């Protein structure tokens, strides 16, 4: 494995946003992707890698069919697979309203791609509602605890998970939570291959300059720049 690339969080957010936009997502959704990737990487979770995986599925013209369709206690996507990022956005937008997991209930998301990407949004919901949430991504994985600004170390179990058959969200209840993942202090090591793949996606947001544009430039090629 090549030596990781030390990155800043701002750089991670910017790269993720551009890559998501390059994959065809609207700017507002891409912005959420950037924030989510930053939130995860700040806690040592492979947010960029998960986003890169998710963008494979979100690059299709019918990506909107990967949103969960809210209704009842079990949400599904028209495409058959909910995207984790879109699930997080959809849930967070509804934090003010009645979510199925409020008051002792549970919400089951059916077939979720890259469920890690939903975690930052769930932390936002935990903050908005003053609640602690529990997330289960199958019988083989430990329960994940989510509080405002924090997630438990058990989140590592879904770090590389490309597809969860079901994700169950409910309130944590009164029991104690496992320890939180600490926030990283300093540069964040990023897999160079992942970064390069996101770079290629980001490059799709760049526009080659026309000759006319180059002449106008930021300055104008007819102007002396060195005086």
């Amino acid at each position, binding site marked *: 494995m090549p030596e990781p690339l030390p990155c800043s969080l701002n750089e991670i957010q910017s790269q993720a946003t551009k890559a998501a936009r390059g994959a065809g997502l*609207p700017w507002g959704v891409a912005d959420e992707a950037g924030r989510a990737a930053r939130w995860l990487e700040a806690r040592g979770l492979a947010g960029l890698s998960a986003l890169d995986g998710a963008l494979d599925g979100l690059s299709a013209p019918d990506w909107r069919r990967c949103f969960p369709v809210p209704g009842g206690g079990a949400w599904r996507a028209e495409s058959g697979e909910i995207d984790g990022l879109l699930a997080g956005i959809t849930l967070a937008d509804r934090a003010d309203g009645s979510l199925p997991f409020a008051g002792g209930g549970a919400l089951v998301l059916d077939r979720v791609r890259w469920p890690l990407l939903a975690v930052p949004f769930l932390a936002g919901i935990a903050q*908005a509602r003053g609640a602690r949430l529990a997330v289960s991504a199958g019988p083989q994985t430990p329960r994940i605890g989510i509080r405002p*600004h924090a997630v438990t170390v058990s989140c590592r179990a879904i770090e590389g998970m490309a597809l969860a058959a079901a994700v169950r969200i409910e309130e944590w209840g009164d029991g104690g939570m496992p320890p939180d993942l600490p926030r990283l202090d300093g540069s964040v090591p990023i897999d160079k291959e992942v970064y390069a793949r996101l770079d290629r996606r980001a490059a799709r947001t760049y526009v080659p300059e026309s000759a006319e544009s180059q002449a106008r430039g930021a300055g104008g090629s007819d102007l002396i720049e060195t005086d």
Partner: protein
Amino acid sequence: MGAAGDFLAVPDGRTGRTLRLRPPETVMRLARLGAFHQTRLSFLRATLRHVAAAGYRFGYDRWDIGDDGVGTAVYAARGPERTYSLVCFAHDLDPAMRTDRVIAEAWDATYTLYDGIPDDGEIERLRANTPKQEAGRYRHTDLILSRTNKSARLFDHVVDCLAAGRQPAAARLDDVGYVMRTTAVYGNGKFGIADRHRYAGRAGFGGPFRLEMLTVWMIRQFVADLVDHAARAGGGAGAVPLDRALRRRLGIGNSTGLGLGPFIVNHPALFARWVECRELALGRVCAQESAPAANWSAFRRWIARARADVATWTVPDPLQAEKVDRLADDLDRLDAFSAGLDPASGAPWAEIRDWAAENLSLEGQELTVSLLIEPHGDLVDDLADRMALAETEMPPAGLSGNTGDLRGRIEDGFGWALAPDYAVADAQARFWYVSANKLEPRLGERWEEAGADLELPLATGRDIAACHADLCEAAQDEQLADFLLRRPEHRHTVRRLCDPELGPYGQIRDNLVGADLLPLNLLRCKLAFFGATHFDPKSDRWLRINMFCHAPYPDELDSLPPDDWILPRRDA
């Protein structure tokens, strides 16, 4: 916050009064924003006040520059809690490679502001990266990255004069204003350097762009020392150092292009805070029923200083030259008008503000704002520390309200966005994009060039209008969350409209993609908040400026006041 006549009524916690602020529909027009001048709240002035008040000590820890002007220097700013080190690399640059364009690949000198005191290993790490600038990689200990180029008009001239044992002519220095220019100052995580949140909580450096300004100021010291060094190397025992008073006439130049423009659009809540603090400062000043004699006479002196300074502001750009001429006339009229006022009664500051709004050009009105604020440091300087926003990792969860609510808010408060007919070609003649060649924001012609499908989300008015049109089509009781599920393309607009931090000055109330857009105004506005002076437009999309011109140097902070240099006394 509510409307009070033509003003915004805003409670002010500091003074306990309700202030009457200029309303956003007046302030947030691009032509006016592009007429802003520096104020006491400007970032570089606030930075100098802080380092002086906190007792920072400056000096160089290393000076390893050869007679050829190539080598390494390390300057330290030692504060009560921390030391910041400017690591400087001076290069031998082929003049043919010297370009101010941000896409250049080599510079006369390159810099990293380092968090702490770098050991030899860290200096070597920086030596392998800093000279490459954007092509290098950095760590969280590296705070700011920058570079400068020599002024071909002035650097060698000054060195030659000093080497020959004589001082350069003041007029020649004033004509250019600097011997080196920065072409970029990078912060907040670029290329791996420290994220802003790492230092935003440190005393004195929570304000916007403070460390960037500290870096430029320390670069100015290095440049001055480099000039003296080069003169000694060339002239030997006969060389003289640059006279201190002459030296202060030199700032650090800067060339700024479109890359700076999108920032104030992309950070609407932050920019709104900058503007609001400036308007609060004006509001506090104008709320006074009378003017204390000392403040009044100071104000009158500041007018005189401004008149003298504007007389030295010469620009080749005909449009700006015309504005400067008008500004000189405005200052004469301001001087005459204020001379006839009684400072002891009748709210003289407010009277001046209102008279200026009726009688002066935009440049004149906004310089009057700066002059009104200037004598009131005790009343307004605290606002300089309120110009930053706490960073939030994720926006607050929860989109309350329905489509009818948002539609109503747009119709009530965003008439400026709905007014243009965007079906007319001129209404969206331009588009902002990131250039594949330069990786920098650029402005394209929508109907003549390819790439508009990849435009940056800076067409705020048009996008609000598009969102409004779809809101009108929606059931009016549809929850916003459901609306965005159906129409995710409006998400960036809804986020902007629903941002609780946005405040009254949250939107530039002009079409940022129209045929009549003057992008220079975006740049000028941001640079005025930095504290730049002598704006010198080189086209409608880039300009030269000067920073710290006439300011004390770090090695003079013991003997000179830190904030009495802007609009310098011409008898000094």
